[in-house]
């Protein structure tokens, strides 16, 4: 996990953050790069495609990724899904903000299922962009690494009294990752039809 996570976003911290920006549209990429630099975030790598972003990820360890998905609404989530699996989860804990003009239920579920930490809806102002960056950097979520899902823990409720076989942190944890606390209300906040996520957790 990046050493910069869990810290309050300060001007000094901004100068250290390494950002990966995946945005195919040149004008929008220019705008976001300009905004980030004006905010004192100079270490930004811009990628015009998800293929280029994968190459960038091999060369650097960003502290946060901003991924646009308006060119193809499935491409951004697919990239996040694949990126989380690189080198056995090397980027499993990387905070990822998905950028989209659409925030309908389908888009939100796609983002969550792929392992995005946050969804930023366009159009947005510099302040809103900084608020989202601050939120995901200051509040890193526990990471789930399982066969079907790698990314931030999506559950919003935890049942401390749950004693099931797949309770995290107990011996005999299964690895199928398909059952567990949900029956006992741990995943009560999950949207209907959402795949239940695994109980294994790293970090």
């Amino acid at each position, binding site marked *: 996990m990046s050493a910069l996570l869990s810290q309050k976003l300060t*001007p000094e911290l901004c100068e250290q953050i390494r950002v990966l920006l995946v945005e195919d549209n040149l004008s*929008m990429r220019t705008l976001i790069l300009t905004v980030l630099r004006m905010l004192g975030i100079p270490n930004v790598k811009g990628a015009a495609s998800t293929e280029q972003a994968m190459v960038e990820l091999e060369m650097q360890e960003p502290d946060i990724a901003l991924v646009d998905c*308006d060119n193809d609404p499935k491409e951004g989530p697919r990239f996040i899904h694949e990126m989380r699996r690189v080198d056995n989860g090397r980027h499993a804990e990387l905070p990822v903000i998905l950028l989209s*003009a659409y925030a309908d239920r389908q888009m939100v579920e796609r983002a969550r299922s792929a392992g995005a930490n946050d969804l930023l809806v*366009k*159009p947005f*102002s*510099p302040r809103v962009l*900084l608020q989202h960056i601050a939120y995901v950097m200051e509040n890193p979520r526990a990471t789930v690494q399982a066969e079907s899902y790698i990314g931030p823990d999506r559950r919003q409720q935890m049942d401390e009294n749950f004693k099931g076989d797949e309770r995290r942190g107990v011996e005999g944890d299964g690895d199928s990752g398909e059952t567990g606390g949900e029956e006992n209300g741990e995943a009560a906040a999950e949207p209907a039809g959402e795949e239940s996520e695994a109980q294994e957790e790293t970090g």
Partner: protein
Amino acid sequence: MKFDPELERRLTRADKAVETLKPRLGEAVREELTKVFDETLAELAGAAGDSEAALNRLRTLARELKGNAGTYGYEIASVVADSLHAYLETIEEPDDLAIQLIRDHRNSIEVSMSEEISAEDQKHLDEFIALSRELVKRAAG
């Protein structure tokens, strides 16, 4: 949400930089957009070319424009693009497309990205957006 005073100063500077950049980026978007629209419409109107790919290109264009135009300050263009995207989502086959309706959206987007919109143009745009939404509602059944 309030930030550290230095970050607040940087935000003010970023807002000014965005305001300065917007016209130039908006112009680039408008030129690119009309070019892609016209090429795609020509492809859809003619028999040659891959009409399925052209339809998907239009969908992408409308989706991107919805988010990007709003960020550059062209809120009306964003609304028209959203309406066009909603219409395109009701289309299953390229043959079902009402080419003139796409042209009307294209022209409305171009007008709404002008430096100044006259009161008459604004009235026409408002009427067009309302009409487009009604059409989408009917097309969606």
